[in-house]
């Protein structure tokens, strides 16, 4: 999906964070805002920005929605904009994943109705993190410094290919991956529904091509595992 375009609506601080991360990983994205003032701000940060009235469906289509747009982010600081934009985009393209942020509790439900695929609630996430930090400080510290942080422990997803030795094996039988300093967190089985299955659920899974494993480990270990088992 690398070639699909990612649209980031609303030049908020969140948009800036996402854009920075995407730029680092070489994804194609466009920042969009209705406010010409945002253009100046974006240029200051080294990004280009399209000024566009998102209320106009033609304008949305001209951005490539329903054609080559792979993801739409609604990141306005105002929920009203986010809900309206989600609805407009969903009306044009029923399939594109829409990710929206929200700032009030009410908006979560409205965004769901409007057709957002994923809703990111910054307050909920921050609140939960703080809660976790108080009740389980060690866990949160580890999660912060490893998964989110600068330490060389990363989370990565690996897809099982046709030629992989893992293809067709039962997960419980196969323990060769234990030779790598990494943890198998869980997997996404193509045959099952969309949900992610954590390894601790203990089901015996037959791995097929197309299944996705999520592992945690150092970058180099993951790379070694990836090449050894012909994963993508």
């Amino acid at each position, binding site marked *: 999906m690398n070639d699909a375009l*990612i649209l980031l609506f609303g030049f908020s*601080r*969140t948009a*800036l*964070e*996402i854009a*920075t*991360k*995407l730029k680092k*990983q070489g*994804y194609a994205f466009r920042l969009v805002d209705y406010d010409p003032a945002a253009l100046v701000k974006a240029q200051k940060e080294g990004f280009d920005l399209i000024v566009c009235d998102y209320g106009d469906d033609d304008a949305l289509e001209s951005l490539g929605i329903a054609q080559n747009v*792979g*993801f739409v*982010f609604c990141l306005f600081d105002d929920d009203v904009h986010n809900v309206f934009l989600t609805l407009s985009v969903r009306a044009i393209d029923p399939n594109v994943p829409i*990710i929206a*942020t929200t*700032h009030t*509790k009410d908006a979560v439900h409205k965004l769901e109705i409007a057709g957002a695929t*994923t809703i*990111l609630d*910054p*307050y*909920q*996430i*921050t*609140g*939960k*993190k*703080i*809660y976790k*930090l*108080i*009740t*389980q*400080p*060690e*866990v949160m510290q*580890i*999660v*912060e410094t*490893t998964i989110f942080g600068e330490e060389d*422990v990363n*989370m*990565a*997803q690996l897809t099982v290919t046709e030629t992989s030795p893992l293809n067709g094996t039962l997960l419980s039988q196969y323990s060769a991956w234990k030779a790598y*300093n*990494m*943890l198998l*967190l*869980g*997997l*996404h089985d193509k045959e099952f529904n969309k*949900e*992610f299955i*954590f390894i*601790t*659920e203990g089901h015996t899974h037959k791995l097929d091509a197309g299944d996705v494993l*999520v592992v*945690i*480990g150092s970058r180099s270990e993951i790379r070694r595992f990836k090449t050894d088992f012909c994963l993508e």
Partner: protein
Amino acid sequence: MSLAALVIRFAYFLDTSVSYRRLKEAARTLLEYPHSKIKFYFDIFMVFLVVLSVLCLLYEVKHPDESILEWIIQGSLFIFILEYLLRFWIYSDSHAIVIEDYEYALKNNLPFSLGRALVKVVRKKLDYVFSPLAIIDLLAILPSYRPLRFLRIFLLFRIFKLFRYARSMKTFAAILHEKKFELLTLAIFAGFVIFAGSSAIYIFETNQNPKINTLFDAIYWSIVTMGTVGYGDIVPLTQEGMAVSMVLIILGVCVLAFLTSIIVSSFQNKLVELKENRLYYDIEKLERYILICGYGRVGEVVAKMLHEDGNALVIIDTDAAKIKLAQERGLIGIVGDASKSKLLGTLGIEKRATHIICATNSDELNIFITLSARSLSPHATIIARVIKAAHKKKYLLAGANYAFSADETIGLLGAQLVTQPVSYAALEGILSENTGIVFESIFVHEYSFFNRQTVTALSLSSRRLLLFGIVRQDESTCEKYFFFNPADDFVLQPHDSLIVMGRKHAINAFRKQNEKRSRE
């Protein structure tokens, strides 16, 4: 050796004596420190004693020969005297005054005067003796001394002793004190009216009215009239007298109305304060609590979850509406500015706040709160919400233990969602805990079941748990190291923390087994 040298030596002896200090400290805990539990019980006991002794006194009026009553009265008297003396003792540190004077003289090369130091000591103690509560205490004791039996009525002063033990009574006294000026003005006016009225009736009626013979009768009559009581035992007979009484009645109503309104309005003002005091009192009772500054959405989410877990919380917000919301949800909320050190000080955060959460929606405010909180409380864990990710460093500089930026997390999640949708799902599941899978830490102590065992012995996979890593604290340096995915032969030590992932009940079962004492 001169007397002065002896006194100084004795003062130094007291100053260095541990047992003396301990004894005094114990007395203060019993009588003074508002947080001490024992004072609370002591106060209740004293209230009971005061009521009991007054009841006995009343009973004794008609039954003077009951010996048990005498015992109770004598016993309570003994306790009252003891209390009075204890309070007298702990009111000031006399030896400290002497030492201070002596050292001041030494440093400035002045001759030390024992007399001046003693005067200071005595003056300080006299401060106590003449304080209103001490006078009441003394009056409650004195009439029991036989030669002073005629002062029996003052035994009722014991009731006033209750002032010492009840906060609300103190508030009433405070109101009277606060409105001193208004009340004094009114009293002068009333006194003038009474004086004028009684002299007038005295002049007009002394010879006409058989009931008014002395000035005292006249004053009695005018007060009864002015207070709108009007017993009717003394009635003006002359027309002049009736005119005086009419004027007096009208003025009397006015004075009463003024008096009532002064006290009521003052009470109403005080009521808000009283409620707040009640709140602070509730907070004072909490031994440990988590302080949340800012009851916005983040604060709300955190407060809800922590409250459900049964943690004691104190919430501060400048917005009264938000605090009201918090109070409706059964939380302790205070309307106030958390950046004020004074407020944080009154809340006692330096001793009793274990965690301080800065969750307002302004970086400047959050940093300011972090700074003031850190300066007051070096040990509390301060967690701050960062609004603009660029400011994160400043939070850590200000003394925050952790600083979170929601934007950063959202940015990371958003980017993850695009680049690795499946690992996003995993991450989301971990963070939101909606899937029932949680990360938790399990502490290994000296007597843990799994102490000194290898990772293999934990048989985690059969328990459906995943060992993410182990946090080990170096015993000498106290530094913490994290071992990611430890090898099978890794041996657990006391003070290790296992970070495991799995379903909540599986983790709980594992934790329970860990808590069992090892077989040896």
